[in-house]
């Protein structure tokens, strides 16, 4: 290895090691029951963010200086089963896609970490928050740098897990926990799709390396090494995964539900990073999308539908956080369209800009009343606010219906509940009834003691 390669390797390893080290310190200390102080916890987090971003900047400088455009960091095969053609290959790559996304993650994690340091002061779950935050940070670094699909999956899972746990941050109340479960179930769906995609890719190319999928060139120039029907199959799975993670149509229902956590976690997850991860995945695998026209059309239409739905839903909401959540969705939809159209750099710029803007807006969401008051004072009158009938002539013809559409949040959750969840539950309870009939007959009495059990107090007590 040349000295340059060694330098790259050291810096690259540092980038990955620092969030993992943070996770280990915070995780092990709480596992051992040792409560780190507030300032120690937040300083560790800040240090870790710095230790990730500085080497990254170093790598960028070196890359610019030497003109190298692709720096892989190989950490070897961790599991290898030659008979099954399976290996778990840890490989990370610094290229034009991962570096901006990584720097974005570092900046936002650093700023929001600093914000949270004061915002969560005196909070009982301070350490818990920062532990989940470390999981998230680690997941973001891993998935943005991932160069094989299994590495990506590890990061992807960590981001999903920490999102769900932070939505349920106030776990003594019912609502956050319920919503987190719902989010978790959608995430699992997209995880499953990603996993199947990973296995399929292994079958097709013998490895999960993104480089292997693309016969030539580094991002964004590569072209897919698989034929278009294979690309369509993998692409659809990837699209499902991305749709779940980025709350695209028809899985947008979870996005407003995610606003149960503390403001900073809502900001960084649903305004900024987590929600863009699906788009990032599509961007990473853009050669596959380019390989199949059908897939391309699917991506574009999914993005467009999501953007339109998001725009309508955002217009109808009367509370700031949900409105911002849907506004995020709108832009994520537009980004997906851009990815589908092959406008990779635009999509990347769009992701970065949108993430920064939305984070700021969500962080200062609680100051809405003051901001509106300031604006009104500046303008010297009420903000323009038309009633429905005033603006009637400018509304689309089916205006009321669109309002209802936004009000019911695109009918998405209702549809899922009615046409997916309910049949499933019906089948299950049908089986349950059969079982009950049989067991009752066998024991010739009521066979379920649980029918007469008293409900747990939590179930009948007041709901916060």
């Amino acid at each position: 290895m040349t000295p340059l390669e060694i330098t790259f390797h050291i810096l690259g390893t540092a980038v990955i090691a620092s969030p993992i080290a943070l996770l280990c310190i915070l995780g092990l200390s709480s596992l051992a029951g040792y409560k780190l102080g507030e300032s120690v916890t937040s300083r560790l987090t800040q240090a870790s963010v710095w230790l990730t971003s500085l080497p990254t900047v170093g790598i960028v400088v070196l890359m610019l200086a030497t003109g190298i455009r692709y720096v892989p960091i190989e950490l070897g095969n961790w599991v290898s089963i030659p008979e099954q053609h399976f290996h778990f290959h840890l490989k990370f790559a610094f290229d034009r896609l991962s570096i901006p996304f990584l720097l974005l993650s570092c900046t936002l994690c650093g700023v929001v970490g600093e914000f949270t340091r004061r915002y969560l002061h005196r909070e009982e779950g301070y350490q818990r928050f920062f532990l989940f935050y470390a999981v998230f940070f680690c997941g973001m670094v891993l998935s943005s740098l991932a160069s094989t699909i299994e590495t990506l999956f590890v990061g992807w899972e960590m981001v999903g897990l920490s999102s769900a746990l932070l939505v349920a941050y106030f776990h003594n109340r019912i609502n956050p926990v319920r919503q987190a479960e719902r989010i978790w179930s959608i995430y699992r769906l997209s995880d499953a799709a990603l996993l199947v995609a990973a296995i399929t890719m292994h079958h097709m190319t013998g490895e999960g390396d993104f480089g292997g999928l693309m016969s030539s060139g580094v991002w964004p120039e590569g072209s897919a090494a698989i034929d278009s029907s294979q690309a369509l199959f993998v692409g659809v799975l990837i699209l499902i995964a991305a749709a779940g993670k980025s709350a695209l149509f028809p899985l947008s229902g979870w996005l407003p539900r995610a606003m149960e956590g503390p403001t900073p976690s809502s900001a960084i997850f649903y305004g900024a990073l987590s929600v863009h991860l699906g788009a990032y995945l599509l961007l990473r695998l853009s050669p596959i999308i380019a390989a199949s026209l059908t897939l391309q059309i699917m991506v574009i239409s999914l993005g467009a539908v999501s953007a339109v739905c998001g725009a309508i839903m955002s217009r109808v909401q009367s509370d700031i956080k949900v409105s911002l959540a849907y506004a995020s969705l709108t832009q994520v939809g537009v980004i997906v369209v851009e990815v589908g159209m092959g406008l990779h750099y635009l999509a990347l710029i769009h992701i970065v800009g949108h993430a920064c803007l939305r984070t700021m807006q969500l962080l200062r969401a609680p100051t809405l009343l003051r901001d509106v008051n300031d604006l009104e004072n500046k303008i010297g009158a009420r903000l323009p606010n038309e009633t429905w009938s005033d603006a009637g002539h400018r509304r689309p013809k089916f205006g009321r219906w669109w309002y209802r559409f936004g009000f019911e949040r695109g009918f998405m959750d209702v549809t899922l509940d009615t046409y997916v969840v309910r049949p499933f539950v019906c089948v299950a309870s049908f089986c349950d009834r059969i079982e009950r009939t049989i067991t009752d007959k066998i024991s010739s009495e009521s066979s379920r003691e649980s029918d007469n059990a008293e409900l747990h107090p939590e179930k009948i007590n007041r709901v916060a």
Partner: protein
Amino acid sequence: MQIANASSPDEKTVKPIEDDRDLAAISEAIEHAKHYLPAQGPISIFVHHNTLHSFEHLPFDQAVIEGGKRYGCEPYLSEDRYRQELRCNRISVDDLRQILMDDLADDADQLVASFGTRYTLRLAMLQMNLHTAPEAELQWLLRESDLLKRFRGEVSDSRRERFVAATRTWVLRQRESESPNIVREIVQNSGNKKVQSWNDDAWEAFTLKALWRSCYDGVKAANAPYPTEVPSRSLEQLLRRLDGIQIHETVNEVLIRFCGGFLDQGFAEWSLPDRELGFAKSFANLFSSRFSIVPIWMKGLGSEMETIAKENFDPIRSINESLAAMGVKPEDIQETLTESLLALRGWAGMIWQTESNSPHLPNPIPTGTLNEYLAIRLILQRYAIADAGRLHFGTRDLTKIREQVELKSHRRNHRTSPSINERTYTIFQLAQAGGWTPEQLVSMSVEQWTCLVREIEMFDSLDRRRILHAAYELHYQASALDAIAIHSARRQKQSQQPAATCPTFLAIFCIDDREESFRRHLEEVEPECQTASAAGFFAVAMYYQGADHAHFRPLCPAIVKPQHYVREEPTFSTVTESKKRAEHRRRIGFVTHQVHANSRTMTGGWITSVFGALATFPMVARIMAPRLTSRIRESLGTFVKPPATELHLERTAPQPGREPDSLGYSVDEMASIVERILQDIGRVDNFPPIVVFFGHGSGSLNNPHESAYNCGACSGGRGGPNARAFSNMANDPRVRRLVAKRGIEIPEDVRFVGAFHNTCNDDVEYYDLDLLPRTHRELFRQIEASVNETRCRNAHERSRRFNSAPLSMTPAESLQHVEQRAEDLSQARPEYNHATNALVTVGRRDWTRGLFMDRRVFLTQYDPAVDDDNVTVLTRILQAAIPVCAGINLEYYFSTVDVEGYGCGSKLPHNVASMIGVMTGAASDLRPGLSQQMVEIHEPMRMLFVIETTPEKLDMIIAQNESIARLIQGNWVQIALIDPQTSTILRYVQGSYQPYVPSETEIPTANSSVDWYRGIRDHLGFASINNTETAGR
């Protein structure tokens, strides 16, 4: 008239009762239920209310229990919390003794079984941690834990040894055949039957087993009855209790979103269609739209909604039909309606407040909305119940569902009384703590056991908390009254000869508790000055519009409806410049608004996002260096700020109003205001050359409750303009002539200056300084310097309560620290507002000056010498002070004892909804009340008023003022009277005045406030500050 079959989702014909009397009864029931709704209006005008205002007719201790039941909230702090206070001596055992004695009165000596009196039993129960556990946990404890092997940790070693020794002697002394059954059984069951060879551990275990068994047998034999709960009869509650079906939650989910849209004050870009047609019509129109997918439980709702949308809708009639369909019996109507209304009480309360009290909102709502809300809600409930019935009982017929549910609830016998084990456990713990040996217990008769069980259950947890709370209050109040008595005596001694000298200047503040420290420090910095206080609107009740404000805003207590409008206008010479700047502001505002609003749309969002990376710079700057960033922003903002301004204060038209001519006050009205305030503060002569009036307010970021931090006497507004207006009035020579005619001579060389104190960043700004004569400027600079020093010291004292502020800061650093807090987006505690408030003094500053009261006291100025025989002045002071202070204090009380139930929970997940209130998370009920971050250092206690007057005069005021009487007689506030001449204190106890005997004779002294509080974060006791001397008046 409604079609009958539309009223029930199962299409079954229900005969509607079309009786006008019924409808009237329903209206009446709604009217009654309304009172239980929270009284908080839109959050941008935050007025502190007694959270249990609807229970104010009851005495406090009864009201907290009734209210707690009604809302499912806690009446007091938890028992554990009081115990903790007991351990760290915040409550002393003497306090408990005193309270318990007073509470029991003649019953104290009643004998309980053979162990002593009711008093001793209760005292023991108060001091120990009585653990309760449900049956299942107890089974586990008995089998798996050391419960029957080791004494409780609280029991001292010596007591344990005596206990075991007594039992051992008792067992060994008996011959085997004669020993009681339980002893034999336990010995039989133990591994080693030779009792003589047992070691200490074995004996301890034996003792405890014997104790448990004897208690168990006794309780079993006693079989004391337990007061049974009245079972709830509402269908929703039965369903929840039996099957965990949550009808209200299902319905809430829809209504939260709809209420949000309906009450929206202009946040959503698309406003609700047909909002102007009212709640019901708008709802019906929305939900009757075709081509929509509805959840299963709403199937069929669309057609019913179509009927409502098309025909005349009478909410009361609809409610009646729904009630009839649900089979609600006439006697249950009240309860059912109340329950339905309170199921989403934040939103329902906001509807009620908006329709009845908030005409100034951009989107007001018509009266009668609450009835329509209730009608719609009941229809939805019907559907939800029908659907639950379909799932669980196989029918959608509401009457059949009710039958089945009631049948099921009869069949499933809910055990309400505690099991034998649970009762035994309580006595078992008491026996250990009280040293009741098995020997004594075994010999007790059944009657004695019954008596013991009854006595113990009579003093249940609620009752114990009541006593503990009373002791908690007593402890603080005794120390406060001691301190006031001692300090005032000390002051009296020091100023034997009332030198009628004039102070260097006079500073008037609001009565607010946050100004206590500011005044104290100012008096320390400038011992020759004097301070006084009046309610922060300074009798200038007005609608005010600043030069750069868009609207008029009321600046006076919420109970007053202002008649006058005052506007800040540019001075005549700067009119053109001002217009230019206003135009600049308008442009900036317009662009900002467009950017913000459009960033949420698709194309606008696309543009803003692509350039969004630019947003990173201000974001990082604001979060990393809030103070610096705000300074830069501020200095940029000066270019568009209005230039020199003045108040349009004098009216030319005869009647006040909003038109340019009718703005302001007539000279006569001004004179009355000036006269009134000067009388209130007791300053009718000896005016110093400069009198400064300080209004106050507070500014903070990311804080939807910002208005709650402002001046309570300005209904959550900033009181600066009031101080400015008052000073302008008092400086007017015509006003002075009129005031002089009424007996108050203000010399010509006296100038009044208005100022504004920001209690969050401790900034002070002065108004109209250009009008100050040259002769006064030197003195003013001196005052300014003192005030600046005071700002630092005040910030320093405040900082001691902030955990994130190092205790080692200097006063100047503290000032920077609090400035930073105010500008910090991530700061959830910009200041602590009224937290820790506990006391109000009404009287001359003379007897409290120099007393360190830890920012816990509202200092109200009153000089009996200026008052007449009818106590006019005191009456009007108390008419404002008692309801306002009690409102603040009680809101803090309730939000602290149950921050989730009465308060608004943690601030961290708050979400501003409809620009009218906050929700927790994405969708929840609106949360009135105060947040956990606001109350975390508060000690929930009722306000103690210490008033400088005589019992006769106070009785007169109580007799004439119904609202004051209700608060005082119901013990919502507590009253003490002081005579500063003799320092004697009388306490008001249930209608009579009892002399208060101080328990201390000395309080600590310190050279300055900082000497007393330095290095301490917690609540601090009282102390006399030496270095604040001046000749008393």
